[in-house]
């Protein structure tokens, strides 16, 4: 399995395949953007794909016995195992094809994980997978910014100050999550110079996201994607606003859309325009629509804004590369 499937870029949603490979049968919340990520991901990848899913909402809510929504072969993997699942599957296929024990053909291997499974627990396995150049695989981290499946607990990918069942605001401590969100994709891009493709995405920008999946699978070797997925239950908003929140996350500059292809960093879509100087929307527009920030004071909002401003004004590349020591 030395070659990959050549998946052509889509020039708009209308070009996307009609065939659904993630169909009815799942039981995610109404307005669950992570479920949309699954649907777009596999639509982009196509039927000759094996999907591995680590524990989390996209396993538990998606794969009830006898009502699996997956048309493609699918297998559960442990919470911290997305990297290992992708690696083991790709290695198994490669060995069998190399020894002519299986028909030689390019089969996509995608392992997905949540932010808890990927940015926290499974980080070392993902990092290891990204160093194994000889295997073609994609690890997709769908980030709903909490351990959602276990009742919305704070993760290393949760935003500063967010209310979660492990970080509830109280009378003594209003802000219980005092950690800033990890820069997972940037860290992985910086740390794995030979991984050919690392990208962020958001289902609100569906064509962009699908094309990134296609590029990740076509380019070969181990690749990584990180999507930001509004989660009505964990973020506490009316499910009808999921799409809008994804757009707001990008337009306030909180979430940066980019790809790192063979070491070259490109900001995409609205993020590119913001980098050229278009005015960002105030983060308050994003924060105030979500119950998880309802306890924020104006000072909290101002602090949040200051961190985002710093990222856009002081970082070498906003959202990707932090400032160097010699920078102002």
């Amino acid at each position, binding site marked *: 399995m030395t070659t990959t499937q050549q998946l052509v870029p889509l020039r708009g949603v209308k070009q996307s395949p009609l065939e659904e490979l993630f169909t009815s049968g799942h039981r995610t919340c109404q307005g669950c953007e992570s479920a949309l990520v699954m649907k777009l991901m596999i639509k982009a990848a196509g*039927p*000759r*794909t*094996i999907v*591995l899913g680590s524990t989390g909402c996209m*396993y*538990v809510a998606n*794969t*009830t*016995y*006898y009502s*699996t929504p*997956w*048309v*493609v*072969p*699918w*297998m*559960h*993997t*442990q919470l*911290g*195992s997305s*990297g*290992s*699942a992708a*690696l*083991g*599957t790709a*290695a*198994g*296929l*490669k*060995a*069998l094809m*190399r*020894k002519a*024990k*299986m028909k030689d053909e390019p*089969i996509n291997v995608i392992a997905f994980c949540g932010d808890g499974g990927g940015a926290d627990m499974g980080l*070392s*396995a993902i*990092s*290891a997978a990204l160093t*194994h150049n000889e295997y073609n695989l994609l690890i997709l981290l769908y980030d709903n910014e909490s351990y959602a499946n276990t009742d919305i607990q704070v993760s290393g990918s949760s935003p500063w100050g967010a209310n979660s069942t492990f970080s509830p605001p109280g009378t003594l401590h209003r802000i219980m999550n005092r950690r800033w969100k990890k820069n997972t994709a940037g860290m992985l891009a910086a740390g794995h110079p030979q991984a050919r493709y690392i990208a962020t995405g958001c289902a609100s920008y569906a064509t962009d996201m699908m094309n990134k999946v296609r590029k990740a699978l076509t380019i070969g070797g181990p690749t990584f994607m990180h999507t930001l997925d509004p989660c009505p239950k964990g973020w506490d908003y009316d499910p009808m606003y999921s799409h809008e929140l994804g757009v707001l996350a990008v337009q306030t500059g909180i979430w940066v859309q980019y790809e790192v292809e063979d070491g070259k960093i490109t900001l995409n879509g609205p993020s590119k325009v913001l980098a050229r100087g278009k005015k960002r929307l105030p983060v308050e527009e994003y924060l105030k629509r979500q119950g998880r920030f309802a306890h924020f004071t104006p000072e909290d909002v101002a602090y949040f804004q200051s961190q985002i401003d710093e990222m856009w004004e002081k970082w070498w590349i906003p959202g990707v590369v932090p400032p160097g020591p010699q920078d102002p």
Partner: protein
Amino acid sequence: MTTETRVGPLETEELISGSEAIARACALADVDVITAYPIRPYDTVMQFVSKLIANGELTCEYIVAESEHSQFEIVKHASAVGARVFTGSSGVGWFYAFEALAVTCGLRLPMVAMVGNRALDDPGAFGCEHNDALAVRDLGWLLNWAATAQDCIDTAFLAWRVAEDPRVFLPCAISTDGAFLTHSQQIVKVPDRSLVDKFLPPYDRGKFQLHPDNPITIAPQVNEDWLMEIRRQTDAAMRRARDVIIEAHQEFVDIFGRGGDPFLEEYMTDDADVVLIGMGTLALPLKVTVRRMREKGHKVGFIRVKWFRPFPGPELLELLPRFKAVGVIDRDYSLGSPLNGGVLFNEVRSIMYSAPERVPIIGFVAGLGGREITIPSTRQMFEITQKAADEGGTDQELHWIGVRE
């Protein structure tokens, strides 16, 4: 084209360690995916594996993982797409992989692992102790204890054959006593590939293979609706493994001309009054002691348990009642367990509850942390057991042997 034909036995004799023997088995069994992570003493097998690969004597995907958890998860997933796999660990490394060890059974994925038995570290020990491998005894792992380097290579072939049998589809661990077996060289008959091919069919995952041509969903959420039925199926697979082991063993004996009894190795038990039971390399000092004591007229014998899972309950139940007393040696501990005894001791006592006559059974905890089980200490265990036989019982059913008080 060469017309040379080989004559004589299709085997060569080589001076190799238990670890090297298993590495050679990997090449002969044409293993597809191997994952490694360093921890003493099992890691020696991977040193040999990597050398075999480097020299072109073994072709496989070889991944040095970043942890034991990943090591076992990687081969688990490779097995799901139909690849023959091998991995291994020791002591705390095996425990680091524990989550993967557990789910592999539930997924019914065959896997062969070598455990280089090692103490669970703190306070600072990495000598031989059996608590590492024994920790998975309730989960669905087939567990074998090897006594010699020959056992290592032979058991490896048996392990793939039994684990990959569709009636079983369970992981199998070969336990090798750290240092005593992993690092000690012995003369080993290494078979020719043609013999191994005759014995070991290719792994065929059949309708459970994860592949786009067979788009199944593996391990969906079943919860209380189905989990009991599925656990029951895994239980049935473990029960069936008994017959599969017997069948495979018989064929092994037919093809390779060695192997003996599938579950137990008996040493001078025929007319014995008292016997000691144990697992692994302690067989060696015990056999020496049996011979020496017999020279002095003591009717003693030794029984080595080869497969701990499935447990040779029926065999022991049939065998043990005829002795006047039985001593069970554990190179492990089970703190707070009945009589505060070791794991094997408790299992043997449990199965003997069904015996028509209750033979005194005494437990010995010995050789922890790699401490040597010496000839004098085995003699001491025989003497304690003999005393119980003479007196028809004992007040002290559990002894720690060779401990400074």
